[in-house]
C-alpha cells in the first residue's frame, strides 16, 4: 500500500503543474497581482448563494469540516498583554457532562461557515443633477441616515459631489462611513496592509491561512470583491500545497470545500481523503461536486467521478485501489480474529 501511495504522490506531483490555473471563465477586470494565482471571485453567473444555503449542501460542508473539539477549542492568542488565571472548579459527573454539552452546543456557533455569495453590484444610482450647485465647494458632501435599526447594507448614504450631482455612495465610501458611525469592533476604517500583494504573499508562504481568513472575515463583507479575491488566492494556495489540515475543524473549511468544488479542483483534497482513509468524507466531497454542477452519480460515486471528471485519474485510481486492498485485508483480518475467538 505504501508503494501505491508513493506512486500516486509521484503522479500527482507530475500532473500538478498543468492544474494550477484551472479553466475558469473570469470576465472580471483582471487584477495584476504579484502572486502566482488568479483571484477568482464568485461573479454571480450563476449565483452561488442559493446553492450554498441549501440544507443538503450545508450538511455536506459540515461533514467535510470534520469537527474535532480539541481543534475547535484550541489555544488562541487573545491579544492581551498578559494571560488570565484559569478558573478551577470541582464538578460532579452530571455537572461535567452539562459543561461538555454546553461546549458542544457552542461548536455550531464557532464553526459557522462564512456565507458564500456573489460579488455585490456597483452602485451608481443618480438621485438628482443640479448643475446650479457646480463649484459651490471644493469637496464632496456625504449625507448619512444614522437612525438605528437599519442594516448597514440598506442605510441611505448619498454623496453630493462638486459637480452638483447627488448620487448613491459607492461601496468603498459606504464601508468607510458605516464603520465610522456604527463601528464593528476591531475592524479598521481602511483595510490593513496585510492584504497587499507582497505582504499577503509572505503570509501565504508562512502558512498563516487562519490568520488571513479570520482577518478578512472581520474586515470585509462577504460580498466584497476584495474579500473574495483574498480568500480565493488563499484557498488556491492551500489546495496546491495540500495544507488541508491547517484549516480543518475551523469555520473556513466549508467555504474552502465549496470554492474548490465550484471551480472543479477537488482532486487534491479527494486524494488526501482517500489516502487518509476518510472515505465518508470523500463521498461527501464528490456528492458536493455533483450538487454544485447538477451531476448525478449512480453506484460508486467516487469511481464514477474519477472516470468522468478527474484531471488526475491515474493518481486517484491508484490511491483508491490501495484503499480497497487495505480495506479488504482489514476485513479478512477481522474475520480471522472472529473465527479464532469462536464467533460465527
Amino acid at each position: 500500500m505504501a508503494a501505491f501511495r508513493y506512486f500516486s504522490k509521484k503522479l500527482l506531483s507530475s500532473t500538478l503543474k498543468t492544474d494550477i490555473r484551472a479553466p475558469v471563465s473570469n470576465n472580471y477586470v483582471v487584477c495584476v497581482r504579484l502572486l502566482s494565482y488568479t483571484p477568482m471571485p464568485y461573479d454571480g453567473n450563476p449565483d452561488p448563494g442559493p446553492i450554498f444555503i441549501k440544507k443538503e449542501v450545508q450538511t455536506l460542508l459540515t461533514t467535510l469540516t470534520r469537527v474535532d473539539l480539541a481543534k475547535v477549542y484550541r489555544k488562541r492568542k487573545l491579544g492581551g498583554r498578559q494571560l488570565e488565571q484559569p478558573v478551577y472548579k470541582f464538578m460532579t459527573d452530571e455537572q461535567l457532562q452539562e459543561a461538555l454539552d454546553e461546549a458542544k452546543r457552542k461548536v455550531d456557533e464557532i464553526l459557522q461557515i462564512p456565507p458564500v455569495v456573489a460579488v455585490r453590484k456597483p452602485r451608481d444610482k443618480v438621485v438628482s443633477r443640479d448643475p446650479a450647485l457646480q463649484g459651490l465647494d471644493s469637496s464632496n458632501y456625504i449625507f448619512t441616515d444614522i437612525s438605528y435599526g437599519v442594516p448597514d447594507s440598506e442605510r441611505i448614504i448619498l454623496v453630493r459631489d462638486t459637480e452638483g450631482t447627488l448620487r448613491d455612495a459607492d461601496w468603498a465610501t459606504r464601508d468607510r462611513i458605516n464603520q465610522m458611525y456604527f463601528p464593528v469592533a476591531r475592524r479598521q476604517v481602511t483595510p490593513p496592509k496585510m492584504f497587499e500583494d507582497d505582504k499577503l504573499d509572505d503570509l501565504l508562504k508562512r502558512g498563516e491561512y487562519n490568520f488571513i481568513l479570520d482577518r478578512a472575515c472581520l474586515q470585509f463583507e462577504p460580498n466584497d470583491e476584495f474579500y473574495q479575491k483574498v480568500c480565493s488566492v488563499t484557498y488556491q494556495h492551500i489546495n496546491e500545497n495540500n495544507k488541508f489540515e491547517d484549516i480543518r475543524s475551523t469555520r473556513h473549511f466549508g467555504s474552502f470545500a465549496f470554492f474548490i468544488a465550484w471551480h472543479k479542483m477537488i482532486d487534491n483534497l479527494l486524494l488526501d481523503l482517500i489516502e487518509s482513509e476518510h472515505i465518508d468524507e470523500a463521498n461527501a466531497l464528490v456528492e458536493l461536486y455533483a450538487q454544485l454542477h447538477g451531476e448525478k452519480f449512480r453506484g460508486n460515486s467516487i469511481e464514477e467521478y474519477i472516470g468522468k471528471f478527474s484531471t488526475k485519474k491515474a493518481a486517484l485510481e491508484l490511491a483508491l485501489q490501495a484503499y480497497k486492498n487495505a480495506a479488504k485485508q482489514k476485513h479478512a483480518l477481522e474475520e480471522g480474529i472472529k473465527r479464532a475467538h469462536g464467533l460465527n
Partner: protein
Amino acid sequence: MASQLLHVTRTLSKLTLNTKCRVTNTLIKLERELPKQPLFNHASRNTNFFNKMPAEDLWKGITTVSNAGKKRGRGKTVSKKNIKDLNRGQIIGVGKANMLWPGLTAPVIRGKEIVEQQQLPEDPERQARLNQLRDQMGTHRHAKLSPIERGWSGAKMPGRSIGPPDPVGEDHFDGFDTKVLELKTVFNMKGNFGRKRRVSATVITGNKNGLVGFANGKGVEPRTAMRKAKNRSAQKLMHIKIFRNHTVYHDFFTQFAATKIYVWQKPEGYGLECHRAIKTICEVVGIKDLHAKVEGSTNVTYVMKAFLLGLVRQKTHQEIAEEKKLHLVEFTKETGCFPTVLASPAQCRKEDQLGKDEILDFTQYCFDGKVILKKKKYPPFYTKLKSYETYLKKQEKLRNKDKVKLDLIAQYGEIRSFLTEKYPECRPFRRAKKEEEQEAEA
C-alpha cells in the same frame, strides 16, 4: 679600624722601600699631617633596624597598621594606592644598560661558541613597561559583573550563583546550580582563643526541574563556607512538583515560626513577583510564574524554610480530586472556556452526597478556608485636588494621540493631517537616523 688600616698600608709602603724602588710615599706624608687621634671614639654596632628584620616584616611595617594602632589613629596616610612594589617586573641581570651576561642572563655556551659579555642596544620600551606595571599597582578593581550574574545588592554574595556542587565519586551534578541566600559573620567563644570569628553561608541548590536542596556551612573564609554549604546541600535533595513545568500546583498558605507566606499560582508569562529569597529559590527549583506575599518575619532562613515547606506539601490535582471525590475542571479563556478535566477520582460523588457547608470553591479549598484580608485601596490623595481635575481636563484631548500617531505612521509613513496636502512644507520635525546622517555626510 681606620688606624689598623693605616698600619697595614704603612708596612706595605715600608716593604716597597726595602726593594729600593723609590716611590713617592704619599701615605706616610698623609700620616704626618693627620693628628694622632682615633677616627671614631665610640663602639660601632653592625646590627640595626634595617638588617635585623626580614624584608617581609619591613614591608608590612610600612604598608599596614596594627588594629591597636588604628584605634589610636595611626597610619592614616597608609593607602593601598600609594604602596608600590618597585621590585615587581625587575630581573637580576637585566637593567637599563641591557647588558648580556653569560651565565646570568644568557647561556655560557651557544652551539660551539662561548658567549661573551657584550652590550646590546638599549631597549627604549623597558622603562615604559615598568611604569605601566607600577601605575596598575594600587588601583586594582573587582571585575564588573554582568547584570545577570549580579546578586541582590552590589557586589554582595546573596543571590549570586556559585555553580553546581562538586561531583561525589562518579555522581556528577549536571544541570544543577547553587545560589547563595545568606552570607554572614558569626562569632563563637572559645576557651583559649576567646571570640572566634567565622563565616556562615546558607545556600540552595537545584536542577531547575524540581530537585532542590538547602544547607548551611561555616568556615573561616567565605569561600570555604560556601563550598561546604554547597556540597552539603547536594546531599539533602528533595523533589518538588511543578505544574506544567512553570508554576505551582495550586495557591497555598504556609508558615514557619513567625513567617507566613501566601502563594498564588499564575499563568505563563507572569514572572516571579515575590520576596527576593523566594525568587531565588524559584529560579533554582524551576518555577517561572508565581506571586507570593510574605507576612511577619522576613528572616531569609525562615522565609526559605516556610516556602520550601509549602512547596513540599503541595498536592497534585489527582490527589485533590481523590480527596474531594470530585472532578477537577479547568476553564481557560484562551481555549474558549472549554472544560478541561485536570483530574478525575476513581469514584465520583453525586450532587446529593455533597456536604451542606462543604468548601467547593477551589481557591477557598487551597487556602484551607482561610480568607485573606485584602485591604481596601483608597484613591491617592491628589485625586481630591482641584489641580488634578484641571490636569484631567487637559489630558482628555490627548488621550488617544499616541495611537493616532502610530496609525498615521503605519499608513502614510509620517505624521500628517488634513492640511498636509495644502501646505506640504509644514512637516513635523523628525530626527534623522544614524545611517541617514552618515550617508548625508558622505
